[in-house]
């Protein structure tokens, strides 16, 4: 099968090598809604030499900051970010797992105070980078699978 292409963007951010099927979740997490100014193109289940299959999200006229896109690492740890200006890649990096993940994934302990009606947001602290492991700041539970609990 021929690799799926989506049109290049002039200015903006390209999020590539997204885990297949996760593109919409990525947009939701970055709170990208798309409007007249910030056009969004998405490819899902595109062929990838590196991953077999991948998703791609391109956002026009918006340069996403590292602390924003790094939140994606929890969802799709191999994603790469390219910042495009005048059709040129001016910056390219891989997302990095943040030390603290707030409001992205629920603690998997249903009895945790952060899963109750309290004025707090979930907060997971990284305890290991490779393999990535997180622990709930509140109840101390080591999380088995953060990706299953993305809010």
């Amino acid at each position, binding site marked *: 099968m021929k690799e799926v292409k989506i049109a290049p963007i002039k200015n903006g951010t390209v999020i590539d090598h997204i885990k297949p099927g996760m593109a919409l979740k990525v947009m939701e997490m970055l709170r990208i809604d798309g409007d007249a100014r910030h056009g969004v193109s998405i490819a899902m289940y595109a062929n990838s030499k590196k991953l077999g299959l991948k998703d791609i999200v391109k956002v026009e006229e918006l340069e996403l900051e590292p602390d924003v896109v790094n939140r994606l690492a929890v969802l799709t740890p191999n994603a790469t970010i390219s910042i495009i200006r005048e059709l040129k890649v001016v910056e390219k990096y891989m997302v990095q797992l943040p030390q603290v993940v707030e409001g992205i994934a629920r*603690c998997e*302990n249903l*009895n*945790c*105070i*952060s899963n*109750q*009606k*309290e*004025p*707090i947001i979930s907060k997971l602290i990284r305890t290991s980078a490779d393999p990535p492991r997180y622990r*709930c*700041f*509140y*109840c*101390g*539970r*080591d999380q088995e699978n953060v990706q299953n609990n993305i809010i």
Partner: protein
Amino acid sequence: MTLKGRDIINIGDLELDEIELILDISKEMLPVARGEKRSRTLDGKVLASLFFEASTRTRLSFETAMHRLGGNVITITGQEGSSLIKGETLADTIRMADAYSDIIALRHPREGAARMSATFSSAPVINGGDGAGQHPTQTLLDLFTIREELGDIGKQNVTIVGDLRYGRTVHSLSLALGRMGATMTFVAPDMIQMPDHIISDLKGMGAKVKRTTDLKAEIPASDVIYMTRIQKERFAEEEEYRKVAGAYKLQVRMLDDAKKHMMIMHPLPRVDEIHPEIDSTRHAKYFAQAFNGVPVRMALLKLILEGE
């Protein structure tokens, strides 16, 4: 080193020398805890004792500790005693208690409740047990009891029996004992044995540990036997629970080969894992252990409110 103003949420938050300091001050508190000496150390201070879940020993010993030091106590027991039942968040209740008191002792059915409370309160928060979570003052009083009875904790061979998989208080005790250099034997059926990650943490700190299913074989070598309650709800079948619980019951006749100084501990309440006949033997230390909740909590209240 000072504990002044500190929250006590998790035993892991305390450095080893801080634990030692708490145990030293606990010892100094003994005559006051027994009522032999009077103290006005915390005169004018107020403890908010917020117990949203049933507790006998922990609540009473916190409140006794405050009274023995000349302080005062305001208290909430059970959710019906507070606005929580009207839908108030714990966070709001804590903000109110913070405004009314100098220090808060909290027990709550949800794990992480104490950590969250500490973020909403400027008054220090002491965790009196949150759900199946942490219970640091229990660990401190367990350590104090061993040190009082046997001296150097690091030289003891501690056998821990019962529900080791889910009992997080047993996990924090083991990690504290490991840091202090004690040898540990974990006795339980496989399905409720000490989890691998705790074993690997313990080995990582150089502790000598082993797991076994045979309680009787471990009695002669033990300096401490720490019994815990095996909870019925962990088992799918009543039959299986009975079989397991029956295999981990201490009886007087099992103690013939025990060391003279061997001490039996239990966080209480017990069901029938320790036969009442043992209560009158020299080995039974679980009531002394329960009493030690008072001097240990006195030490904490003093160190947190006044410093050294």
